[in-house]
């Protein structure tokens, strides 16, 4: 197609991932025009599915956090309601929280949803843990309330109001998960079991902010988790359909190549690889600042601040997933849990260290989807996906000619570890197999090094200061906001939808201010 100038849009969203799709709906609901540019032939980014033989695999979603039931909705269900997509999707509830196993033989625990049930079960596994676990959840509740307040004022919190209403939140707010759990005098074994979710955030509990972890755990345990029946592709198409209903446009096979500026630091449009210019003054980037400031933005508009702030950040885990379609049912194979966390050690800092190298990483977060939704594959079959992450760029050492073998080696190890730890023999039942490596994630979503979790939220770059600096961070280039795993809320489905919601609404605010100024 020849280069041409397209019609102008109030805002252009780069990337139809979870954050981009949510942002586009918010912009359209605000009454402004919006175009979504997507490099792939589908919406959703990681939120998609793919078919192999008689199986349709979930590409990435393990469980949607903070969704809740229709009667007691979580924040994400409420958001989906507001976006107008809740009813477009058929939902299924996840039966239990997690099954945590450590290969050193120390743990094999199945934890339920619900604070009472969770606390009771913990007391069974670790007698004497009840008091500290109860206090943990009380503290988490305050964290959740404080964050709800913070969101309601767009991060511009009143310190005296905070001190009065959320004193524990502030006192615990600067500490890591392990520091807080120790202060609560939680028995070590209860800490270990409670920390099982850490791999969902990709930072070990010595460095992960308690606020971040606590706010996630309480959402899982009190509001339980849900899944769309037709895999996450159903969510992505529901959002896509909503964009079209609201009059928005979405172009596939249309990666943004450049963000054009006027030379004075103002965005003037987005340019596609074939030279097509889409005039706009507002961009929501559902991709990394590394890609935006390193490749997309006009070189003369890239400031020292952009470079410093982007270089300062640390990439989070690079993803690896094995997908298996098995020709026996979960019951026949003896697979009883929906969601397994298998670690070598419950010491998350030590485990994190082992995850730096491909060769020493044997962690897996494994789902057997049929145990949440039995009809997800034909009768007499089941499907599983095994996910891990590499905490350094070690995968970058893989060569072309070793690529397929390298994928097989890790897949083989995942199957070996799962069989050994659960006693379920699955190898002979493999009918379909697919592997997504960091290379695959880099290919489909363009993320640096195949990172699937955005920037690490450890230490100084933890969730709370990110949220408190939301406005300040957006000041790096007026007219540009980020959504998705690299944005202020960090990675994960729920967080990505929320960042899209925030950046979409804030872009509407920017557009309204701009209209008033005229």
């Amino acid at each position, binding site marked *: 197609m020849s280069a041409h100038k397209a019609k102008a849009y109030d805002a252009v969203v780069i990337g139809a991932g979870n954050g981009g799709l949510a942002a586009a709906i918010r912009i359209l609901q605000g009454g402004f025009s919006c175009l979504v540019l997507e490099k792939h032939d589908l919406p959703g980014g990681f939120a998609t599915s793919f078919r192999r033989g008689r199986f349709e695999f979930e590409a990435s979603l393990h469980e949607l956090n903070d969704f809740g039931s229709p009667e007691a909705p979580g924040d994400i269900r409420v958001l989906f309601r507001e976006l107008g997509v809740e009813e477009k999707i058929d939902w299924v509830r996840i039966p239990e929280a997690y099954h945590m196993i450590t290969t050193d033989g120390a743990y094999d625990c199945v934890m339920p949803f619900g604070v009472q049930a969770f606390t009771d079960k913990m007391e069974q596994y670790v007698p004497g843990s009840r008091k500290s676990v109860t206090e943990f959840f009380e*503290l988490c509740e305050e964290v959740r309330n404080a964050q709800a307040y913070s969101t309601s004022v767009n991060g511009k919190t009143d310190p005296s109001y905070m001190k009065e209403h959320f*004193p524990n939140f502030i*006192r615990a707010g600067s500490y890591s998960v392990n520091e807080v759990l120790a202060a609560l005098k939680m028995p070590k074994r209860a800490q270990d079991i409670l920390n099982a979710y850490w791999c969902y955030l990709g930072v070990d509990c010595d460095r992960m902010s308690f606020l971040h972890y606590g706010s996630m755990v309480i959402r899982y345990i009190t509001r339980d988790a849900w899944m769309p029946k037709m895999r996450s592709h159903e969510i992505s198409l529901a959002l896509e359909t909503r964009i079209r209903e609201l009059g928005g446009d979405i172009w596939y096979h*249309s990666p943004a190549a450049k963000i054009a500026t006027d030379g004075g630091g103002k965005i003037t449009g987005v340019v596609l690889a074939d030279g097509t210019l889409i005039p706009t003054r507002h961009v929501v980037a559902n991709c990394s600042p590394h890609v935006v400031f390193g490749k997309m933005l006009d070189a003369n508009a*890239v400031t020292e601040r952009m470079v*410093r702030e982007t270089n300062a950040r640390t990439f989070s885990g690079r993803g690896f997933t094995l997908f298996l379609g098995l020709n026996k049912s979960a019951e026949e194979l003896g697979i009883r849990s929906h969601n397994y966390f298998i670690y070598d050690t419950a010491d998350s800092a030590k485990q994190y260290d082992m995850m730096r190298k491909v060769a020493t990483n044997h962690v897996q977060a494994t789902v057997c989807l049929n145990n949440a939704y039995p009809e997800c594959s034909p009768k007499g079959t089941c499907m599983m996906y095994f996910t891990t992450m590499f905490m350094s760029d070690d995968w970058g050492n893989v060569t072309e000619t070793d690529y397929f073998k390298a994928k097989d080696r890790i897949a*083989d190890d995942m199957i070996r570890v799962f069989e050994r730890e659960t006693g379920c023999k699955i190898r002979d039942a493999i009918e379909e197999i697919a592997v997504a490596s960091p290379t695959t994630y*880099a290919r489909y979503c363009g993320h640096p090094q195949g990172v699937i979790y955005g920037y690490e939220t450890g230490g100084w770059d933890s969730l709370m*200061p990110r949220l408190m600096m939301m406005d300040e961070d957006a000041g790096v280039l007026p007219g540009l906001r980020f959504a998705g795993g690299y944005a202020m809320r960090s990675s994960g489905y729920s967080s990505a939808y929320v960042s899209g919601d925030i950046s979409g609404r804030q872009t509407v605010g920017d557009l309204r201010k701009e209209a008033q100024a005229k």
Partner: protein
Amino acid sequence: MKFKKQIFGFLDMLRFTKLVPNRRAALAAGSTEPLPKSWRTNELARRLHPGMMDVELTAVRQLAPGMQEFVFRRLDGGAFPFFRAGQYISLQGIVGESIVSRPYSIVSSPREALAGKLALGVADAGFFSGYLNREAKPGDRFRMSEPSGEFHYETLRDKPQIVCVAGGAGITPFVSMARSMAEGDEPFSMTLFYGARTEAQLAYKKELDALADKGLRTVYVLSDEEKPGFEHGFVTAELLEQYVDPREVTYFLCGPQAMYAFVAGQLAKYSLPVKAVHKDATCCPNLALDAPRTFQLTVHVRDEVFMMPAREDETLLTAMERGSIPAPNKCRAGGCGYCHSKWLGGEFCIADGRDGRREADRKFGFIHPCVTYPLSDIEIDVPASE
């Protein structure tokens, strides 16, 4: 409950107030090194999956009556992607007014591709293959997709011993698999049953015979000729049993539909699981209709709208190609999803057994034009070409 870490709770509060200044300082202390343009993993992804490539035909040779080999190089002189032996590429050219693409299995080994050479064996059997066989010459330029498809060996799924059954031009993926095995990139041992009408119609016989001392066992099966050194007839269960234990192998089949049906009949008595037999996909054909109607097809590509006729017996993809719309496509069999498009209105039907859509695609109105026929005037939104 009152949480305190320090004995005096105000120290905890003080620490909290430092979160923002600490982060501000850490961000400002970032390096001024220019941001990287790429990373090793992303470079590997680009080499393995370059998308559409501009290629030039460098050599043509006769393989058998009605079948030629076409060798390509990349216009930029670069390597072709390393791939899984058994995969195909989609070759795109311009024939008359039409932009036409067809999938062809790769004959070269993955290492040959890496060395910059990629060969296809194409039988004169249709619109584009006929054009290639009759008119294509060295120096001609085409576009080529990256290697794709799931018709390849999987170490963790398949048996160590594989049986490949080729019918006629269906030999091509197995030449690549045999070469790749000989080069040490595949762990299987391979017995190839290669069916043709006569010896003269066996393409790549010399190459396959040369691989005999590298572990390839080839059984030639001629239906119309009886000759020493060749089996006569078809690939029957009895024939298989002479060479392998039919229950202890994984099958790869590539050939015409009639061959698939015949082999399936022969294997029926072993009650093999689904996973034991892999069939290469075939292009979705035109429908055999006596008096096909012609409808109007409206196609949205980004902000452009095109209108063209669409025949009832041809897929929407074919209609777009006739209309010179470079609609994306790869497998033309309904499976790869690369032509995934939004249905906006009108009626359609999908070729039997070729609905490779995801569940939610059906719910929200998405189609694969490569296997979809119009039943009325119809309107769709397709992705731009790469």
